[in-house]
């Protein structure tokens, strides 16, 4: 059987890629995808724990996370569209109206 640490290492790696992507990417959609990657890496962690602890709690948590992520995607894409309509750009570097 694949040991627990492998799953955890994989999800930690995915989470790190997500964080790095959010910090490095300049396109709003890419940033948003990286956030989704972070959420899904957490799902992997939860499922792995759930399996190795022999519980269903973690899997239930994953369902709730997936529902929340879907709701967030709906709202997030709507916000991105309304920004795009007004600015015709998706680069976060251009989002610099509010600054000190």
């Amino acid at each position: 059987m694949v040991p627990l640490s492998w799953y955890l290492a994989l999800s930690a790696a995915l989470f790190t890629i997500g964080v790095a992507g959010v910090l490095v990417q300049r396109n709003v959609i890419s940033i948003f995808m990286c956030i989704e990657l972070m959420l899904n890496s957490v799902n992997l962690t939860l499922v792995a724990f759930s399996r190795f602890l022999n519980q269903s709690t973690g899997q239930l948590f994953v369902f709730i996370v997936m529902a929340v992520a879907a709701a967030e995607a709906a709202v997030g894409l709507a916000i991105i569209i309304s920004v795009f309509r007004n600015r015709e750009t998706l680069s976060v570097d251009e989002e610099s109206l509010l600054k000190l």
Partner: protein
Amino acid sequence: MQFSNLNLDYFSILPEIITALAGVILMLIDAFSKKAGRKLSPMFSLFALVATLASIIALWPRASYTASFAGMIVNDHLRLYFALVIVACGIIATLLASQFLDDEALPPGEFYALMMFATTGMLMMASAGDLVMVFLGLETSSIATYVMAGYRRTDLRANESSLKYFLLGSFSAAFLLYGMALTYGATGTTNIEGIRQILIAGKVIYPQMLLVGVAMMLVGFGFKIATAPFHLWTPDVYEGAPTLVTAILATGPKVAVFAAFLRVFAEGLGTPTAPAVGAQIYDNWINALAVMAAIGMTFGNIVALAQRNMKRMLAYSSIAHGGYTLIGFLTTEYAPVGFYMLTYALMSLGAFAIVQMLAREGDAKTEISDYAGIGFEVPNLSFPLAIFMLSMAGIPPMAGFMGKFYVFKSAWVSSPNLRWLVIVAIINSIISVYYYLYPIVVMFFRPPVSDFTKPRLSPMSQLALAITIIGTLYFGLFPNGALKVLQQKTPGAQQVAVQK
């Protein structure tokens, strides 16, 4: 989660049920009759919020640690008190909303519905007895407020504010969630009381992983309450969002996140005497929090000194207030934090309400220089604003003073080795007097601006303003009533909900 003892006690989630149903009904009202909606929606949401208030008061005699819904909902005094403050914020915001929506010609239906859904999420955070519920409540309120921040859809600043709030909000939620997942893996349960029992029993499966998980949860909560060093989104979001929405963002969600923060850290991880990793975790998070509080206060106050925009100044001041509130965590009781949040919510809502009334359409006039000389032109707005500013600065007899005094005093008594933090906080509140007095000086002692016209005030906004002013003075002069409510101890031994 225990499935043997579900304890489906629907009465214990009555407040959440009322607000969620009201949100759905408000959307239907808007769908069927747009015209009637403008008059009907605010009345209906007020009615629903008052009903929620009544249901919270009706739940008071039943306060106990007995968790319902398989440990998901805890109905103790912490929950009831914070729910009361959250609904009070909702009522004041609803009273202010109708004038805002009329003046800006924005569609009313969704706004009230979103506010109801956000309130539902906040109430869920206050009543959460499980990490799953904390996350769900946090996201329910966040998703609604992301939309509200961008409610003025054609305004570039509101767009940007909403986008920044959304990206950083969901980024921080992912951190919080990862922390929760690791905590779950390390302890084998997501129930907050269960985690506490496991720490006390010394039965943590992976101690190192618990440390990482708790650290990540701290980052996630730190983002949501906007304390330094996780505050960078706050000034931009607060400035760009419509002022009324800023008032809502700065109060309700913050109060709710503090409730969940208290529940998870002060209750779940507040185990100074637990064996091995339990005590270590407690030491670690309390020290990390002390540093966060110190940085938050100092940074918020010093940067606020340089602000010339009223909303940005209030945003930095809210970062500083977050820092002060964190000092209350040193006591691991909820009373200091609860009382500070009550006073902060009242004065913040009041101050933002006046900024909104003076700002006019599209938030055109939010620079402090726009307030020059208006002191005696609109005394019904300038004097209240002065009261709120003095209250935030912590000048007696206003509520802000009592809140600060209570937090500092209880932290001083309860944790002798972190007294330096209280001293830092007192120095900070002295610094903050400068920038809180600045708008007052501008209003009363500068030559008036020529193009100033008196803003219209609807009866509902006047009522909201009256509530915040009376509240600010009342809790400053007679805090005993609120403190007595806060110091109630939940009866009965703590119920254990540990899964085998």
